[in-house]
């Protein structure tokens, strides 16, 4: 086994430094390509599907651009970005720990139902901003509470959370629909929906735009979560748990506690997304059986962003445009909006394939800027670890090691 003879901590020679920089640049380019290619491929495949259905893909995508970006429509996209971003961040946190919170639909639905149910009363009776904060906390609490059963089952008994969160999701959506049709029903109309909050009592816009302020809150949340994940003790514990639960136990990390707290944080963020959704000037109410399932669509982008809270922002922006423009484009072409679900599934599939190809070229962990080691010596590496470890390792690794030269 080759061993370097450099004493630890020795300063780097200029040649080595240049080599390192080149390698890091290559790495970043590599990561960038691997994040974008799946999207491009999915759009192409989606285009083929459109053609097979007798639609012109170029017209369709053209409409997507028109309705999603052109003129002032980008603001519309920006508004729809808010709940997407918060859900994405919520999923990023939990996926980092390699825990699968697939119950986002139920958590979102209940949060939305409760905010829409109590919203009209609260905004009338309380000072507006106080009401907003209270409603946001309520939604966050509900979202978090809805993760408790799966979280405790996993923490205490190791019960598979994929199934438990999914089941809770179905129950949550049903419960939300029931509440909307029941106690929260708007008594003055027949369609099953809640009382609409008056327009002047919804979130105000950022001055000069028609985007409501919740976008700023979402950005702030992104920054806070990113900081926590990359620079705090909690974030490191989460990373260790995600990379290797056995090692986490060995290091003395309290696994049950970490499991539950990461679940709660995830649920809270998703609940917050629901509050932003209901309180946005575009809505103000929710209709039963039609609560959006944003989480389904945003999942692939969470992975594409390598579980990095900052990197997920452009991806979410992209999807926001795609869905806002796509909704209109679909109705123009007489297509159901579920078409977007196909695109999303394709992105995930292409992503896994591209990951495989990328890993093969490099024999080993793929996303990290390994820096000096690669440049200065060749070592015998263990066989590539299964994808589960690498994803979480990758994301945090980028952050933990950035700036080291």
């Amino acid at each position, binding site marked *: 086994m080759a*061993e370097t003879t450099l004493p630890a*901590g020795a300063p780097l020679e200029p040649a080595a430094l240049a080599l390192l920089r080149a390698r890091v640049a290559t790495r970043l380019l590599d990561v960038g390509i691997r994040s974008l290619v799946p999207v491009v491929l999915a759009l192409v495949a989606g285009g083929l599907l459109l053609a097979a259905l007798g639609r012109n893909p170029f017209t369709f995508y053209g409409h997507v651009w028109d309705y999603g970006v052109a003129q002032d429509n980008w603001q519309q996209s920006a508004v729809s970005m808010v709940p997407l971003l918060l859900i994405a961040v919520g999923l990023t946190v939990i996926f980092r720990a390699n825990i699968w919170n697939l119950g986002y639909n139920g958590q979102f639905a209940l949060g939305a139902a409760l905010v829409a149910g109590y919203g009209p009363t609260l905004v009338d009776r309380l000072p507006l901003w106080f009401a907003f904060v209270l409603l946001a906390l309520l939604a966050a609490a509900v979202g978090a509470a809805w993760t408790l059963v799966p979280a405790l089952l996993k923490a205490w008994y190791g019960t598979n959370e994929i199934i438990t969160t999914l089941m809770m999701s179905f129950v949550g959506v049903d419960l939300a629909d029931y509440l909307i049709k029941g106690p929260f029903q708007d008594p003055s109309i027949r369609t099953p929906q809640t009382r609409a909050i008056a327009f002047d009592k919804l979130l105000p816009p950022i001055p000069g735009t028609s985007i409501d302020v919740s976008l700023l809150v979402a950005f702030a949340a992104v920054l806070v979560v990113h900081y926590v994940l990359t620079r*705090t*003790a909690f974030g*490191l514990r989460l990373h260790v748990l995600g990379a290797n639960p056995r090692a986490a136990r060995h290091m003395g990390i309290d696994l049950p506690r970490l499991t539950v707290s990461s679940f709660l944080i995830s649920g809270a963020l998703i609940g917050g997304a629901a509050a932003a959704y209901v309180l946005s000037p575009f809505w103000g109410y929710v209709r039963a059986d039609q609560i959006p399932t944003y989480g389904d669509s945003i999942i692939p982008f969470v992975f594409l962003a390598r579980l990095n809270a900052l990197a997920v922002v452009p991806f979410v922006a992209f999807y926001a445009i795609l869905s806002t423009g796509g909704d209109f484009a679909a109705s123009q072409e007489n297509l159901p909006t579920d078409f977007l679900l196909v695109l999303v599934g394709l992105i995930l599939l292409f992503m896994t394939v591209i990951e495989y190809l990328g890993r093969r070229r490099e024999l080993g962990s793929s996303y990290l800027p390994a820096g000096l*080691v690669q440049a200065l010596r060749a*070592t015998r590496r263990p066989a590539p670890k299964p994808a589960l470890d690498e994803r979480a390792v990758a994301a*945090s690794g980028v952050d933990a*090691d950035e700036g080291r030269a």
Partner: protein
Amino acid sequence: MSVHEHSASAGARAGGEPPLVELIGIRKAYPGVLANDDVSFSVRRGEVHCLLGENGAGKSTLIGILSGLVRPDAGAILIDGREVSIDSPRTALEHGIGTVYQHSTLIPALSVLENLMLGDTRRLRLDVAGARRRLAEFGEMLGVEVDPDATAADLSLGRQQQVEIVKALWRGSRVLVLDEPTSMLTPQAFAELEQVLGRLKGQGLGVVFITHKLHEALSLGDRITVLRQGRIAGTLEGKTLRAAPAEELRAAIVGLMFGEEAPVVTDVAELREDIERVELDHDRRRAAEAETVLELDDVSAPGHGTEPGVEHVSLRLGFGEILGVAGIDGNGQRALAEVVAGQRHATHGHIRLYDAPVTHLSVSARQKLGLRYVTDDRLGEGTLGGLSVSLNLFLKRIGQRPFWRFGRMQRGPIEQTAGELVQRFDVRTPSVSTRAGTLSGGNIQKVMLARELSFDPKVVVFHKPTYGLDVKTTATVRDMIRGLARAGGAALVISTDLDELLEICDRIAVLSRGRLVGIVANEPGAAEQVGRLMVGDAAVEAAA
């Protein structure tokens, strides 16, 4: 020795017959390492050919090539003189090469019979009756008795190995490859293995026996080939083995195995041991009267999966003492290590550190009190390969000052202290930001040692501390353990390597089926006593 006699009488010295298997000019390279460099090797009918070499010499790769798991980059393989290509385990079996791997390939949840029938795809229905008969035949041939319906997980390790040998021979193999088969055997089981091999030789089979233990090769081998750093360092033929005196053989082999490093070697050359023993005797007697730093009082902890737990274990570790825990692998060692470290919950009993109860304290609390654990699972548990060396050094201190303040990571203190630790523990790494997974095994172990032995360690549990390490690093690690003891700390060394325990420990305890069956002072004769305890003789308890 008896095995040599068998070899002569079986008449296996093939006159003009081609060897059963011959490897010529084998070359296999991995990124950065030439695992096998122009290796030629053969096995004749009725002989045991031992392949001897340190860890990392290239033995496993060679075995992989023989058994079809690995394809060579260059070179030829001949079966009965005809060149063949072995591209999968199935092909290897078809050519008559049966392999018993170091890590068990028995499926624990299935029965012995099911394990044996696995892979026989000729007919859809399983021929259970036929398999039973065959097993009985093999049992007779090898002189062993195995219950066909027993669940593989319930068998003792020696029995499991016998089943594996039967499995390797099941499809009519003529060459048996044994990869380090004795690491987990009692002396009795080793004797049984010798007998089995003798009978196989009598049947005309060829056996390839891979080991890193010199005395085994001398005891069993008709031919001994030494591998060093991927190349054949030399071969000792039967004539030489029978003629030359033991000491000369030993020296010759050691020279082949280690080249110019031979003088540094401690465990294989049993020379230094005697000198050291005299020096340490004095220290050991002192340690025996010292105060107790760690006490286990009737501690029980559950097992995990197929591994047993510990039951009613009581022991005392004194100030400056190195206490060894010997035993065959899988007798509760991991449970013992984890319950002391706090990773496993004790269902019964008390653990005291300097007289203070720690039984219910968490891992991190025990860490802070100076109770540390160096795990044997370096990559799967002890380090996070994707994180930097510096972060790995503080993974057991997440959130603690000065490395974290109010939860925020403090890069400065982390890097600085990491740099100091890396220097102090001689970790060879380009920088502290290097990913730990890229370091060599020895340096990963040093990182773990740096982590556990820094910040005032008091009692450290070592689980297989030198397993798989090269000679230099092994010596360094053992020195660190001694250093810890000399400085007033105490060490609990759990290891399946009896030689290692005999070298560094003051007393040796024996773990058998989760119970502590005796503690032996490390004096002349300890090896035999320990061996007897491992097998289950009446408890030989000797207070230090």
